[in-house]
């Protein structure tokens, strides 16, 4: 079963800023899954091993957290999670 975490965004500027911030944690830019209706088509794929550190960094950053949406994706099915769930 393939499983990963995904951050979707309401703003492309936030997505690009988050990529810059989370690159050290192995984040990768990917298209937003069709089943997620965030307004921006750019998402970040987060590695299971580093997701919790990445989210800490995100919460401590000056990015607008209400524009960021976390999902756990299992077998291509996204399940929404709170940003502080991990």
């Amino acid at each position, binding site marked *: 079963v393939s499983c990963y975490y995904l951050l979707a965004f309401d703003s*492309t500027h936030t*997505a*690009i800023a988050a*990529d810059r911030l989370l*690159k050290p944690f*192995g984040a*990768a*830019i*990917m*298209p937003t899954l069709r089943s997620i209706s965030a307004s921006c088509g*750019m998402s970040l794929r987060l590695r299971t091993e580093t997701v919790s550190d990445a989210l800490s960094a995100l919460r401590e950053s000056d990015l607008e957290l209400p524009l960021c949406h976390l999902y756990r994706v299992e077998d291509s099915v996204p399940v929404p999670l709170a940003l502080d769930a991990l």
Partner: protein
Amino acid sequence: MLIDAMGKACPIPVVLAKKELDSGCRDLTVAVDNEAAVGNLSRLAARCGMQAESETVSGGFHVHIFGNGEIHAPVPAPASAAVSCGCGYAVFIGKDTVGSGDDTLGYNLLKMALYTLAQGDDVPASVLFMNGGVKLPAGDEPQVIESLAQLIEKGTEVLVCGTCLNYFGLTEQLKIGTVSNMYDILGRMQSAAKVITL
């Protein structure tokens, strides 16, 4: 098992080979008369997790496909009925952005495009980098290098313009792909059924 695909236009050799592989054959030889077909059959084998060896014979080539692979590769489609040769598709990347308007956005769109290509089953026969595009395989972006590595693993050929690497002083920085030239890069475009320019 021997398939005689001499004189057959692309994608017929690949279609014939895949039909046999789909029906369970795990050891077959395809006789073809052009090098593009050799490349296409080798990529089919790679995508199916099988091995391919080719040898030159009188009037063409024999491609031997063997191993224990799972068959899941889609057969490349010809660009249109009017095209009598060419198989698979090439992706040409001549700058380090997709489109124009904003370079940061364009660069991130390109990263996303390479990721999406690498995740799919229908991977390109070749990805061709020229001019500013060579900054991607010679750059420090782990995501780009990882996507290109996945494409190569799935059978895509990654060619990088050597003249362009030299111009930008990036020859020593190339992380992935094969240093190439105008002859080979144009040749891959000519032998593809279609070329996508990002």
